């Protein structure tokens, strides 16, 4: 029974949603099901928060390695939660949006989260540069093609591309670096991306059918049939 009930729910919801997509009178049913999904998604927030607290409180209590970071995480969690929940320093009061300008939650976001996340993302520039230096070597034919494509895109995404090749006559404009970059994106890249997308699409359909028909049961903690 423990196994059958989730399988029946999956089968019924999956079938209803497929049919409701194609049968207009069943549209309302689809919307209601989606709202159910939203309710479940909200509970996932509680679950995620609860799990975060459990993991870090355990680490703190047992003085595990790097427990100091857990303290920072917990303080950050509670301060941000309180700022949003009680709308601390919110100029619009308790009824206003928690992200109103001037509210503590918005200030934490602007002056803590934005600089931190932007910094982490910006570090990519250093690693991309180092990786490009090491990886883009013309060791064989495939690597050379990759190298040339990367070079064209890098140059084509800067004004230097036009400065270097802008002198070419209109009849040869296709050879201007920015136009070559567009060609790389519009032809070889497009073909590859489409192939990947079609492959993923077929994979999603087959996996969905396996789930609906109860063949795929790994989500229940079982081995797939």
């Amino acid at each position: 029974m423990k196994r059958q009930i989730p399988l029946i729910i999956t089968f019924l919801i999956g079938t209803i949603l497929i049919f409701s997509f194609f049968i207009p009178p069943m549209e309302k049913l689809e919307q209601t099901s989606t709202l159910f999904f939203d309710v479940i998604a909200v509970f996932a927030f509680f679950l995620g928060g609860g799990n975060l607290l459990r993991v870090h409180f355990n680490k703190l209590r047992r003085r595990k390695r790097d427990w100091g970071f857990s303290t920072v995480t917990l303080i950050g969690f509670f301060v941000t939660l309180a700022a949003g929940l009680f709308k601390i320093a919110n100029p619009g009061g308790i009824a206003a949006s928690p992200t109103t300008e001037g509210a503590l939650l918005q200030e934490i976001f602007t002056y803590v989260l934005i600089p931190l996340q932007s910094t982490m993302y910006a570090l990519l520039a250093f690693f991309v540069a180092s990786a490009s230096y090491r990886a883009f070597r013309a060791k064989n034919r495939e690597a050379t093609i990759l190298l040339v494509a990367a070079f064209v895109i890098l140059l084509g995404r800067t004004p230097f591309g036009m400065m270097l090749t802008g002198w070419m006559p209109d009849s040869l404009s296709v050879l201007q670096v920015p136009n070559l970059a567009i060609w790389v994106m519009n032809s070889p890249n497009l073909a590859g991306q489409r192939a990947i997308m079609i492959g993923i699409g077929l994979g999603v359909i087959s996996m969905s059918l396996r789930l609906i028909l109860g063949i795929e049961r790994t989500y229940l903690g079982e081995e797939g049939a």
Partner: protein
Amino acid sequence: MLDVTFGIPLVVLSDVGQAISLLLIGGGLLWIFIRSLKAKEVDRRVVFLFIFFAVAAPILFPITFQEKATPIVKKLFDKVESLPAGSKVLIAFDFDPAMAPEVQPMANAFTRHCLVKGYKVIFMSLWATGQALLTQTLERVVKGEFPEKQEGVDYINLGYKAGNEGVLNVIVTNFRMMFPTDVNGVPLDSTAVFDGIKSCGDLDLIISVGGGKPGIKEWVLFVGDRVNVPMGAGVAAVVAPQLYPYYPKQLLGLLGGVKGAAEYESELVKHYSRFEHTDTPGLRMMGPQTLAHVVIMAFIVIGNISYFIGRRRERRR
């Protein structure tokens, strides 16, 4: 604004700074190039140092370039430009602070363009972190540059709603079922913006700005394709190649990374003189991006030279 520092005009200081920075970077690259002729590898810390200078120098001493919109950007600009006054445009802020430096300039440019054309703009976000970034745009761009525009009449902020594709799946047929009120608790029925709007099908244009999931792809699959609403998008550079298959049918145009933002901003400045003195972060960021690209290309060339020389030496042995 100060235009003099220690008695030296800023323009001169900037030019001197640019020249010194370019000399430093160019000289350093030349030195590494000479080393590469001896088949010597470059330590990655040296690469990091060069990238640091290449990015920092144009920030400290701004270098700007003229941008010309490529067709993929121009088409979207022209679409926004050609809508009739009073058209209803939805702008989705589906990004987080990590992506914001790259894509928020696009969102701000779209917002400026729509408001200057007199369209009714609906703002929303599928990302929890997007709502706070949307607030920044509302404060700085909408309220700061268009004080005459009224919330609820000229624009509306629906805020963030959890549920990813689920949210789209509902608003594609019924907005009010997912958003009975705006972010401030004002019922949608009492706002002028939502007059005549039941679902996404009643919109004239949807612009999604982002680079992750849920994002542009989900907007195309769950909304654009289903109700046949014109769509445009602005994305982080790393994601742009994945969205090319949707252009030009499902996406009218696509802004990819800082370059896309800079091209759109340059079009906006070209068409509307009121934006001549408006901050254009996309155009500003093209300086650091260009120099960083040049440095990366130089290192690729240097790496290959030292690789081939080293290989030739090994063969001789």
